[in-house]
């Protein structure tokens, strides 16, 4: 193995040509698709971010760092960045806490457990467009169940989608509702794979349930929690559909707009592809940085059972 590593690449390829061919056959199609539909657009977007282009002119016009300067000076950019951060933190934190509790419940021997698990997972398989429309009905100020609840309680409840300060939270509610089912499925799978002997030993030692949860379950589940934190955060920062359907970023733009919705608006509604590309590049860099930070911090609290 050591010898093979020292051999020049060409000799290694001649000797192991068949293996290389098999490798390329398996990886090639996937790599080609990634290259065309992911890596090339990323590269192209990076180049476009230094240009002024309305998507229609024959060629983009070089603009240097003008797009980046314009974005950093624009209060709307900072507002949508803040909205997206609030959205992502709220959705990930609330949905994962609820999903974990739900998974603990669904992991117990309950009557109708399979049905309950299906119900819990249903919001995730519902398309976001449909989920958003359902929530529009739920929050409807005159005909929604929430307004009936307010009326039954004798209070004049707020109008969520007409309020510039509440609309973002209405969008967050949809995100949480959809994420809970997905996260609970992973937590449930993780819980079912936990070694029973740890719990038997803890029971023999008389460890109380809450202590068992804190000292055994959560540490053993930390890889699942970490996975859901990383993927959940990335997914949440890309929120678009629910904003487009429920608020279009309003009622006073960008009160409930998110980063990706703003990107879409700049690029495809306002004809500013260069500016939208700069927004996309900043998004890419920040997402990679946050993910790297999450991985760096993971060594402190994620236990892989070694």
């Amino acid at each position: 193995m050591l010898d093979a590593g020292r051999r020049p690449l060409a000799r290694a390829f001649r000797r192991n040509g068949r293996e290389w061919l098999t490798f390329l056959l398996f990886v090639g199609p996937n790599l080609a698709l990634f290259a065309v539909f992911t890596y090339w657009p990323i590269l192209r977007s990076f180049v476009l971010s230094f240009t002024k282009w309305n998507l229609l002119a024959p060629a983009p016009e070089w603009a240097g760092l003008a797009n980046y300067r314009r974005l950093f000076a624009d209060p709307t950019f900072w507002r949508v960045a803040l909205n997206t951060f609030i959205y992502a933190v709220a959705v990930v934190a609330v949905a994962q806490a609820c999903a974990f509790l739900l998974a603990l419940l669904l992991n117990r021997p309950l009557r109708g457990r399979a049905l309950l698990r299906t119900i819990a997972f249903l919001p995730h398989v519902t398309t976001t467009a449909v989920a958003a429309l359902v929530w529009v009905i739920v929050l409807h100020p005159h005909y929604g169940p929430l307004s009936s609840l307010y009326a039954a309680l004798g209070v004049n409840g707020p109008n969520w989608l007409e309020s510039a300060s509440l609309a973002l939270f209405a969008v967050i509610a949809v995100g949480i509702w959809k994420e809970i089912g997905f996260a609970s499925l992973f937590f449930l799978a993780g819980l079912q794979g936990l070694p029973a002997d740890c719990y038997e030993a803890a029971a023999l030692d008389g460890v109380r349930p809450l202590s068992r949860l804190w000292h055994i379950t959560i540490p053993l589940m930390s890889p699942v929690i970490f996975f859901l934190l990383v993927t959940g955060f990335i997914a949440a920062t890309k929120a678009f559909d629910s904003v487009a359907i429920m608020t279009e970023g309003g009622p006073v733009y960008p009160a409930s707009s998110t980063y990706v919705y703003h990107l879409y608006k700049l690029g495809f509604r306002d004809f500013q592809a260069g500016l939208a590309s700069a927004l996309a590049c900043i998004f890419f860099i920040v997402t990679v940085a946050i993910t790297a930070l999450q991985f760096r911090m993971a060594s402190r609290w994620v236990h892989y059972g070694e």
Partner: protein
Amino acid sequence: MALVSCFSFLAAFGGCGGPQSSLPSGSGITYWRTLSGAAGDAQDTLVARFNEQHPDSKVTSEFQGSYSDLATKLLTAAAARRGPQVTQLGTFEIRQFAKSGVLVDLKPLMNGPNGLDTSGWPPTLLAAGEIDGSVYWLPFNVAVPVLYFNQDAFAAAGLPGPPETWADFFEYARKLTRLDEKGAVQMNGLALWNITWPLLSMIWSEGGELTNRDYTDITLNDPVVIRMLIDLQSLVREGAATLPDKASGGHRAAFLSGRAAMILDSQDAFSEVFTQASGFTPALANYPAGAKGKVYAPGGGGLAILASATPEQRATAWAYVRHMLSPESIAYYARESGYVAFTEESRRAAGDLLQDPRYAAIHDALPYLRADYSVNMSPAVRNAFDEAFQKILVQNADVQATLDAADARAEAAVKEELAPQ
């Protein structure tokens, strides 16, 4: 009504007879359209009629969503050198598409052997498609501002009829507002649309301006604009007016369900209002007059040919545009959809259509349309004003300060938007 409508359609097209194609064989084209319901179905009927007359040159009609959805799809299609050969297009994006070479200059076709005589058309409508001496867009579904009101609520409030002036309009909104015994609003006098367009007529008729046509003078903080928005803000504060969210049905749903007594809309809402209003009698009128009389912002959409069409497809595309803009087609479309029969010939072809006082009121607005689409055309000005007036009405923001900031923002954005590429 249905029988009359059917008869006039047959009469209108009776002279066309059977197939009469002289177009290049196999030059099929695609037509992208917006508008659903009656306004969409009527377009498909006109397309079917064209296909019957030209069996070798099929037009395929494809619905693409709202005006802005259609423009977004057209943008990406044009960037990919794909898309339709003819499109319906709102007034918002004509300038951007035309300046980028996406649309065909129709002037040579209009003046050619199979031309189109628009000498009798209102210049106000033609002006929207004229850019630097060329014509890139021709009006088709012309919209005018229309005030819809709840007749029963007017009677209950002791109001004789629709408001004649904007001063009356504000007063009526207050009188029409109903509160319950706890002081909660049961019916708002007015539900506002959350876009700039209806406010334009209000501002223009009172002598205000948002911008000049070439954007060298942006005046979102014009004194008239400030006064109008202070008045509207007072109505909202008092509960006499509301700005409902779009997802919950917006201003139209508020009116149709009897939760608002008046809406400022266009005749695009015509069939929706008169078929879906429940529990009260709806009626329509022109927008009130201001200090400068009646000055109305035109709306709606028109037709454009895409530059990506081959010469054969362009021939079919032009034949199709002429078909859609024939007096008979415009008259048919007006009858079916409520849009305006905007030429003298089409009104004649429409027969007894204007005997209906509702249609008559819609057509009465035509002479007051102003040849100025400039605000519609610039996303920068539109976005800045939309956000400002929503901030003023929803967040109760300071009117002067908000409009000053919006004006500065619009000026900077317009420079960027109109800079040559």
